[in-house]
């Protein structure tokens, strides 16, 4: 099985001084969905953005390490050249152009050569994946709900014809029912196109529902990796990300109280 993406010892700093990643190693297998789990500030978003390329706007820089995409070294490659290589990111926040309509949000991405009927076809394809969007076609994206925005953002990313799709916080702030729908849609897309994906998630449940392999990031380093089945039975993952601690099912207050007591005893 070939890896579409391979990251070795990646180090990233913000504002020349804040070290966000120190030595991340991860791989994404071609045609597979891989998940990246981790706590807040672990560096998940930073990892995705380092892959898809920073722009001058954020004062971030890759200091060390390599990013290889389809065997080619793309370390430090800037936007939008990474897009032309086939790496597309759905960001965590601000993921749609609120002043453009849904259709324009999709259209703005297409290259100038894709005129007329060809473009129509691309658009229809997206509407097949996300039928909800078809109805909203002429609505300014600023009026969409969170779930609709997420779908539109994924749709917009798909129009870029990615070979590797990066999604940051797929389920953040979305209702369970919407999360279900999006998972379903992504599965469809994946089934049809065998698109390789790297998903960042807080919720291990969502990650495990989609991905076949996973990495766990902690404090800017990969702490754990493995096939989803293995991760799922890993005690640490259970504790940290699934909340199925010793009591089996989450007992929020008891767990917290226990930890407070432990801390107090130290």
């Amino acid at each position, binding site marked *: 099985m070939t890896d579409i993406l391979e990251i070795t010892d990646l180090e990233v700093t913000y504002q020349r001084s804040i070290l966000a990643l120190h030595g991340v190693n991860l791989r994404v297998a071609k045609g597979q969905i891989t998940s990246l789990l981790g706590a807040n500030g672990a560096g998940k978003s930073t990892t995705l953005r380092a892959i*898809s390329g920073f*722009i*001058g*706007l*954020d*004062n971030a820089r890759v200091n060390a390490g390599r990013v290889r995409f389809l065997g080619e070294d793309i370390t430090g490659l800037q*936007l*939008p050249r990474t*897009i*032309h290589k086939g790496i*597309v*990111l759905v*960001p965590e926040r*601000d*993921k*749609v*152009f*609120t*002043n*453009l309509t849904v259709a*324009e949000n999709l*259209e*703005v*991405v*297409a290259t*100038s050569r894709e005129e007329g009927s060809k473009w129509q076809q691309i658009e229809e394809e997206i509407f097949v994946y996300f039928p909800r969007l078809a109805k909203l076609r002429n609505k300014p994206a*600023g009026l969409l709900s969170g779930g609709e925005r997420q779908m539109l953002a994924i749709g*917009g*990313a798909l129009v*870029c014809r990615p070979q590797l799709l990066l999604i940051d916080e797929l389920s953040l702030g979305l209702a369970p029912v919407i999360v279900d729908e999006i998972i379903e849609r992504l599965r469809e897309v994946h089934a049809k196109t065998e698109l390789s994906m790297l998903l960042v998630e807080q919720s291990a449940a969502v990650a495990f529902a989609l991905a076949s392999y996973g990495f766990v990031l902690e404090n800017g380093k990969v702490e754990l990796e493995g096939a989803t089945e293995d991760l799922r039975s890993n005690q640490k993952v259970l504790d940290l990300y699934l909340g199925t601690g010793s009591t089996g099912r989450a007992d929020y207050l008891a767990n917290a109280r226990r930890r407070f007591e432990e801390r107090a005893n130290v």
Partner: protein
Amino acid sequence: MQIVANIIVLTSLYALVASGYVLVYKVSRVLNLAHGELMILGAYLLVATSAGITSDPLIAIALTAVFSIIVGLSVYLLLMREMTGQPVLAAVLTTVALGILLRGAMVLIWGPQQLNVASMLSFENASVVLTDSIRVSTASLWLVICTVVVYLGLLAFLHMSRWGMRMRASGQNPLLAAQRGINLHTVYALAWTLSTFSGSIAGVLVALDSRLDVNMAVIGLKAFPAALVGGLDSLHGALIGAGVIAVLEVLLIHYVNPLLSDVVPFLVLIAILIVRPWGLFGTKEELNRV
């Protein structure tokens, strides 16, 4: 009736200058306070071409257009590009600094004296008799024509071409635009180039119509309320804003006190903005949602 003609000419001037503000603001939220100087630089470029390269006025003007495009592009590539990612206020101040630099440089090169560009080009700025009671100068007539053409061109470009759509998208969310494969630098460079180009046209025509000296850069300031009344990111807003300001200015000069023509447009601007904080046609910027 002459008053109406005066209003139309002044509207065209302000509108042409204001379009430059709008273009740059629309894509980058940067208010280009060096626009007045860039406009005048266009006229000085005409002086330079006609003195140094060709004496044929038409070729000189065409060459000036090319040079102004080069100037716009270089301003972006050498300067404003460096400001991507900095706070908007810093970018705005950079344009102020650019203005100061350009002023100094223009005096250094072309001297502080007022130049008679029309006579240098042997362009006879004849008075054109439109009706018995209406006369305008040839250059003002050109000014009106150019403004119409520039506006039609820009509107078509922004709303019908994909690059126009990209400019709108980049203005709203640059990071996402980049993440969707839009080359921000191309978009910004395009905006600066178009803006400098239209500004230069205004500069050349104003210089042909009256004279040329660096002080005329203040016309940039006077076109300001025009761009704002309409809404800084709306092209047709700028046109209407220019109309409002020009009407006010001409009527104040004619019927009230000309000294108020500096003050009143700004007061009217405030009044309009208080009713519509984003100008008559500007996009309502996202309220703070919490």
